[in-house]
């Protein structure tokens, strides 16, 4: 881990800036090893302030999902909606924590065919620079 990485503040701005650079950076509590896929400045469980950036593999399984037909404005602008639903949900990362993410590369019009615990991987190339939410796709 470079000094430059270590010095970045534990903020969402840093988290999403890392993503744009092609790095999926969570944080780790140095005291008890808890890992979070959000940039938290303190560990909400151990209450330690001794946090460090921790690079995540991007490997995960899909733990729960939904396929949305009534899209918020930001996704409507990308062409999603009634005739083109999108899949989003909760993934469990190989490192343990969960995070919310959009899921691409699945048939969102036929959600009954999307398997539970599907293996997924972070799709850096699908993360939009202007609106950089996490996107995973089948591994």
């Amino acid at each position, binding site marked *: 881990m470079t000094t430059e990485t270590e010095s970045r503040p534990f903020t*969402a701005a840093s988290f999403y800036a890392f993503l744009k650079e092609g790095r999926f950076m969570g944080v780790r509590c140095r005291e008890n090893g808890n890992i979070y*896929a*959000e940039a938290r400045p303190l560990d*909400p469980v151990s209450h330690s302030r001794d946090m460090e950036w921790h690079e995540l593999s991007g490997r995960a399984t899909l*733990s*729960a*999902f*939904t*396929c*949305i*037909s*009534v*899209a*918020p*404005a*930001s*996704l*409507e602008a990308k062409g*999603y909606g*009634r005739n083109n*639903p*999108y899949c*989003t*949900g*909760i993934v469990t990362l190989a490192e343990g*924590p*969960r*995070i*919310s*993410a*959009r899921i691409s590369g699945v048939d969102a019009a036929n*959600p009954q065919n999307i398997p*539970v615990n599907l293996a997924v991987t972070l799709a850096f190339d699908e993360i939009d620079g202007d*609106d*950089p*939410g*996490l996107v995973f796709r089948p591994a």
Partner: protein
Amino acid sequence: MATVRSRRLARPVSIVGAGLSQFGAYPGKTSRDLFVEAFQDLQDTIDQGISAQDIEAGYLGNYSADLFEHQGHTAPIMADWLGMTPTPITRVENACASSGSALREGVMAIASGMYDVVLVGGVEKMTSLPTEGVTDVLASAADGLYEVPAGLTFPGIFGAIAKAHMDRYETNLNHLLKVGIKNHENGKLNPKAQFRQTVRDMMERRRARAEQRGEPVPEWDDELDFLNDARANPWIAWPLRLYDCAPITDGASCVLLVASDIANQFTDRPVGVAGIGQATGRPLHDAEELTSLSAAKIAAAQAYEMAGIGPDDVGVAEVHDCFTIAEIVASEDLGFFAPGEGPHAVDEGRTARTGDRPINTSGGLKSKGHPVGASGVAQVIEVYKQLRGEAGERQLDNPNLEFGLTHNVGGTGGTCVVNVLQRG
């Protein structure tokens, strides 16, 4: 049940009056118009009468007049329009649990000895925005940095909970739809409800309309067949359809709280606040379980402990059915049914008005309507009416009804408020 520290109010608090505006879509009416309507209903229902100038403090639940109506600082406006100034009033914002939390603040204000007579209420004017706008405003109650960028909407988050429940237990799509059918049957009997129609009524209406227009009349075997038809009941966030979602509603609610030792100055049938609980949870991706709201379990344990009762003593419950799956999860979190048994209880009719565990006799958020900031107190009003035997056509046939419960959720369990109310 979670283990909680024993807590007591420093002195008992009673509810002596309740008022609701009509729930629905009212173009031209703003928050203040709705709140005045609710207050006038309250005045009319207080046996001995009440003047706005007799009130010593107010707490107002309001989620987002800021975004819905471009109106911040709503509490003093409500006070002025009631003629309550210069009495202090404070707005409380906890998303869809705003007035549940406002009620709790009012209870503690009286229990502290500071005041004897407190007005608590809630208001939301939602239909001023189109549906997409409302979806975006509601989504702002989720985590804007880590949930919303993933494309999660409120129906989406509860859709994911529904999917997790279906994967873990025997829950299926028909269980969800049956919650809606049951709540509309109750709402039909509630004069204040937004939808005073059963699902069968709505199905017949659609058939009649098709016939009138000379279009092919759809053939549906029954309500479930109708609700399973994607043309009649489109997907919103699979596995949730339109009729799994509470509507967008304009409405207001208020109750009058007083120190129990003066309750008989207002009514000879007060309802006691026997137990209050409130707890805080984390976003779904950080939650302990995907099929349960931990804050609901903890808030329930607090309320039961303070009231000295358990789930089996609850004769009527109003729970936060913002989506049909939320009612099933609530019935498990509150200890009415074991985890995974909630859907079977719906199938068996146990949560119907005629069942042994009546839930949402008002019609719930689904049929009565869900003006988000007003819903927590509106739930309390239904239980108040049931305990006083004033619920009209939907009155429970239970002469031993003593305890009722309300369960009000903000966001996806970021906030949960549970109250136990007691007759007398």
